[in-house]
């Protein structure tokens, strides 16, 4: 086979993979949800600067208050998703809270991908004691639920010190060292038994060469799956931290759920449950988390339908 033919074949295989990814319904749905929230993030400051401007800052997500009506108010023409118990516009809060949540998801996902690919590839290529250390360590890290650890780490820190980026990074480190490394290492172990690894060794490839050129490319898809599933957890962890430390003018999906639950418990039997606040917050969390989960499982199905059994 000439090298030209091989290059053409490789290109065809890449094109097939690209089509499989781009036409997978789960991936399309996940991208659509993310695009919707991305639009919200962009729309919030624009709306505040144009349609919502000059009305005593009623629509400010942190300090807004509409003097004309009692709060919490149900969805209306003025307030598309109603107002919270402290009179803030729920739609504005929802749009405002999207950006930090995306920061959490992206930083957690990136950390998970980097850690799991590096550790998994190195463990598989070096084998021996390196692999023993990596696999035992990841087995132990699986036992520490990242959500609880992030909560324990973050709850007493001022939110300025432990913001979206820090939540995402610490969740990513904990999840990345645990389930993600365990999974990616298992895939890497099947990669190093393939014949091309022997060929690369015989051709004189060193460990670093083998890791970066021959093992890591086979792990990217699996690491991406882990990154997405980890991002799901990070979004929920961030919301839980906001839910438990809900104070002052902070804005977050978790805080919106908290606001609704606390109000309905305080006013049980007196006022109706403000479902719109809780639903806005909870669906913000669930839709964003689900978008990452859809991307993860969709990617797995599109790229490697037969590998599903060893991944989770």
């Amino acid at each position, binding site marked *: 086979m000439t090298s030209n033919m091989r290059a053409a074949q490789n290109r065809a295989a890449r094109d097939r993979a690209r089509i499989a990814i781009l036409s997978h319904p789960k991936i399309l749905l996940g991208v659509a949800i993310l695009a919707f929230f991305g639009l919200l993030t962009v729309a919030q400051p624009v709306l505040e600067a144009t349609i919502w401007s000059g009305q005593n800052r009623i629509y400010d997500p942190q300090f807004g208050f509409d003097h004309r009506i009692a709060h919490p108010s149900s969805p209306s023409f003025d307030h598309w998703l109603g107002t919270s118990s402290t009179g803030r516009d729920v739609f504005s809060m929802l749009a405002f809270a999207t950006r930090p949540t995306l920061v959490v998801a992206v930083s957690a996902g990136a950390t998970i991908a980097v850690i799991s690919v590096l550790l998994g590839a190195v463990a598989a290529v070096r084998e021996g004691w390196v692999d023993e250390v990596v696999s035992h360590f990841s087995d132990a890290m699986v036992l520490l639920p990242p959500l609880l650890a992030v909560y324990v*780490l973050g709850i007493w820190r001022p939110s300025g010190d432990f913001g979206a980026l820090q939540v995402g990074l610490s969740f990513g480190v904990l999840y990345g060292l645990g389930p993600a490394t365990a999974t990616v290492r298992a895939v890497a172990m099947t990669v190093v038994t393939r014949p091309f690894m022997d060929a690369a060794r015989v051709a004189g490839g060193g460990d670093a060469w083998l890791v970066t050129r021959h093992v890591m490319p086979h792990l990217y898809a699996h690491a991406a799956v882990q990154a997405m599933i980890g991002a799901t957890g990070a979004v929920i*962890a961030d919301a*839980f931290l906001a839910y438990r430390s809900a104070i002052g003018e902070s804005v977050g*999906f978790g805080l919106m759920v908290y606001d609704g*639950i606390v109000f309905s418990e305080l006013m*049980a039997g007196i006022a109706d449950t403000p479902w719109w606040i809780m639903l806005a917050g909870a669906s913000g969390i669930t839709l964003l988390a689900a978008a990452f989960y859809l991307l993860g499982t969709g990617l797995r199905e599109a790229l490697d339908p037969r590998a599903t059994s060893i991944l989770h």
Partner: protein
Amino acid sequence: MTDGTASRAPRLPWFVAFLGRRFVWALITTLIFVAVILFVMEVWVPYSWATLGSRSPAAEEALRELLGLDRPLPIRYAEFLVGLAGGDLGTSLGGRPVAELLRDALPVTLTVFIVGTVIGWIVGELLGRLGSWNRSPAAGAGISVAGILSAAVFPPFLVFVLVATLREPLLAAREAIGLPTDSLELWRGAVIGQEGALSPTDVRWVVALSLSAAVVGALVARSYARRYGLRWIELLALPGALLGTALGLWLGGLGPHALDLLYRVDISVTTGRGSPALALIGIALISFGQVMLLMRAGMDAQRAEDYVLTGRAKGLSEHVVRDRHVARNAIAPVLAGSFLTFPTVLAGMMIVEYELEMHGLSSVLFSAVESQDTPVIMGILVVLGLIGIGFRLVTDIAIATIDPRRRYARR
């Protein structure tokens, strides 16, 4: 070998070596895990009770010395491990042993965790198996949506919805069974300090331990049944273990007490929280999706194998191909994968338990975080890790029972 040299040597049954290897694994994992927790608590956690409030640096130093927080980490690590071997998890900063704090809380969490995940497993496995075989787009989409919602739901909101919708039916059920409306009537003996009277903690421990034993037994029995084709045992082992434990408790005279704990509503009557029955439903809802998606993916991966075609060609009915051939091959990876979902399910479970104001590990953990009681936080995280190790051992044994190749695997 036919010359007999190998067969004459006495051979241990496979599970001796297997259990030995798994035990060594558990030991090493515990050592690493405790080191990780100690590191996180000491280096990463920014607070400690000793630094709480506005003490002068000298007073803080004295307090740290008194509590033993100033000594080098390796020594404290060794001390913690020695204590752990003897069931001692350290001392809370309030002066009570951590193990004593956990004695009342552990059985609550254990019971809820075991029953909730077993129900989640039964439902998830069934739906995953049927969903993989049913090729209609509606069923596939329904299963995907349910699985993803189960993984992405915000637990506090789930609890709120459960309480809002299920509190009244549960109270009605309690009345229908004939339990006294006031839980105190059942526990009067323990409250007035009568000798030999049943206390809630006793009953919780009996329930938790008998449930653990029954479920572990059922899992192993089920794997054997799967291997040797005993279809009915395979189907009924897990539900049977739950029902059998319930029946045993009832015959043992603990029925009303155990039921009362299940339907308990006395903790917060106005909000309707504190009911383990709701927690079971919540945890089952959080855990079933992961198992379902794993099971469907495992079945889908097996569907393309040649033996499926062979089975159909020799005239086996579809459900025999599905249940006896494909499902049996798909289950081992699903069991292995389910361990990796452990942290997610456990965290969800702790939140559900806390939101329901149950007096389990989560309430001890969250109040320890509030009072910055680092030894208690550490003790609970270690206990959660030990539960995880037990969970892993049980799944490993189940996998080895199904798949002989795993019995001799190094890991």
